């Protein structure tokens, strides 16, 4: 397992280098620069030159990349030109919101999708299967941000049950935190629930057709035990993988939901960085999200290898 982990890490290295190249050079292609964004419309060339020197923007691009990479490897993602705060600190301070959003979405998705997918597969062609199919199709088709708007209309404006936006820390007030995160979590989790449900249904149908399930049935294993102990346990392996990959995608998907509910997470941070043309912040956020995505995928691969004994280390 250790060798497998090491090999997967080695394979991830070129991807991580590629991510750093894209994150750096792509952000540099954004028109205008931090200096002009900071100084506004009226500034002297001397002021601009001084700021460019301060942020090392006057050096050749390739040199800037290696200087930046050196800083990144030592844990320094630079300083936001707008707030003057360290980028890594800003990202970490926003991370809790996005992570909580992702956890609620995944939790909701698994709680709804796995039982529904199992019931749909077991009752294939029946009423539950039809309901599950409709749910699966609607889930992947309804835009999360529209669902969020509908939730606000219903639960905030008409019923007045939940706040329409903003964030309260879990530590400060757990109940208020849950009230603020319930709607964004559900809106973001619906698409994941649909994907996981479709995967569970498909995996269960595959497993239910296997010889060992037929054998267990022939031996008189009770139906409930057959489904849960023999079929679901094996069907869950690909489901775990898909759920993990979805967690990575949610990091990006949260941008729009955070905007709908004014949640101060990583997504909203990236959007603010784009609006303010804050190079360091945008680079840091893009890099952070992409690296997190690769690491989540790596973790999913390792979990998969651990769960499935057929994978050779």
């Amino acid at each position: 397992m250790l060798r497998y982990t090491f090999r997967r890490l080695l394979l991830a290295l070129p991807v991580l280098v590629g991510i750093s190249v894209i994150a750096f050079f792509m952000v540099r292609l954004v028109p205008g620069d931090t200096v002009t964004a900071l100084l506004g419309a009226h500034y002297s060339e001397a002021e601009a030159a001084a700021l460019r020197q301060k942020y090392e923007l006057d050096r050749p691009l390739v040199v800037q990349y290696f200087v930046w990479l050196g800083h990144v490897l030592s844990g320094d993602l630079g300083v936001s030109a707008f707030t003057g705060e360290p980028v890594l600190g800003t990202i970490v301070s926003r991370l809790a919101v996005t992570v909580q959003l992702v956890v609620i979405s995944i939790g909701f998705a698994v709680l709804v999708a796995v039982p529904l997918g199992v019931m749909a597969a077991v009752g294939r062609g029946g009423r539950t299967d039809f309901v599950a199919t409709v749910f699966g199709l609607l889930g992947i088709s309804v835009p999360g941000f529209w669902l969020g708007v509908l939730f606000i209309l219903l639960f905030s404006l008409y019923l007045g049950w939940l706040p329409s936006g903003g964030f309260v820390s879990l530590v400060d007030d757990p109940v208020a935190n849950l009230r603020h995160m319930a709607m964004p979590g559900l809106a973001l989790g619906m698409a994941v629930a649909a994907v996981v449900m479709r995967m569970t249904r498909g995996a269960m149908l595959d497993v239910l057709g296997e010889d060992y399930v037929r054998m267990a049935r022939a031996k008189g294993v009770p139906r409930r035990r057959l489904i849960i102990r023999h079929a679901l346990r094996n069907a869950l392996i690909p489901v775990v993988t898909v759920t993990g990959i979805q967690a990575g995608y949610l990091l990006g998907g949260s941008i729009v939901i955070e905007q709908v509910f004014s949640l101060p997470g990583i997504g909203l941070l990236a959007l603010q960085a784009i609006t303010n043309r804050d190079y360091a912040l945008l680079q840091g956020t893009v890099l952070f999200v992409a690296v997190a995505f690769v690491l989540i995928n790596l973790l999913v691969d390792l979990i998969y290898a651990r769960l499935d004994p057929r994978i050779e280390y």
Partner: protein
Amino acid sequence: MREAWHRLGRNPLALGGLTVIAAFLVCAAGAPFIAPYDPYAMSEGSMLRPPGPEHWLGADQFGRDILSRVVHGARISLRVGLIAVGIALSAGTLLGVIAGYFGRWIDQLVSRLFEVVFAFPDILLALVIMAILGPSTTNVMIAIGIVYTPIFGRIARGSTLAVRNATYVEAARSMGVGHGMIMARHVLPNITAPMIIQTTLSFAFAILAEAALSFLGLGVEPDAPSWGIMLSEGRNWMQHGWWIAVFPGLAITLAVLSFNVVGDGLRDALDPRLRGRGDVP
């Protein structure tokens, strides 16, 4: 292939999806004739007018007719979908077939490139590309096209790997047929089925992505009647009128749902392995 189309024709859900897509296409093509009002025309007397006989889907904060804007929005969404998917399909197929056919370092290079692009969440990558290019309909098409290129590339590469050593390819090679001709005449026709399925499903992704980018203010031109922009404006005015946000979202959902349903139908029709799976205990 004919049998597959016949199978698709017997799928009522897919047929329903195709009908809705056809209706959207008619709306897009004939928007100026179908829409009851000019989608840009403001009217002080109609501001925030709820749905009624004069404005079937109501009017927005500037008194613009929502039905007319939704009908014109179909034009933007379908055009963005068509061209963005066209870009992704062309670039992805080209890269994927070359990588799968030649293998070795070309395959390694292209595959790593795809992996790197895949590492960026699609909306984030599209957002950064839009920040570089600036908000416009053309740029949205380019951004979405770039983001979805690796999806097509990966499928094309995998399918090419499966056929590159087939007897008919070996035979063509031994007869001295050039690589370009082999890829065009022998590889491409044999990888069309998965590409058709992915194209249909990608239309749904592209429509969603355009709406999301426009919703965030980095999509099409700010005054364009895009469903995403309408939804974003509707969110700001929803305490004054639910209809401003509800109908554009409904249009997005209906369009995306139709493409997903047709995509699923095509997959069932073209991939026989997916039928008849499993036994119910």
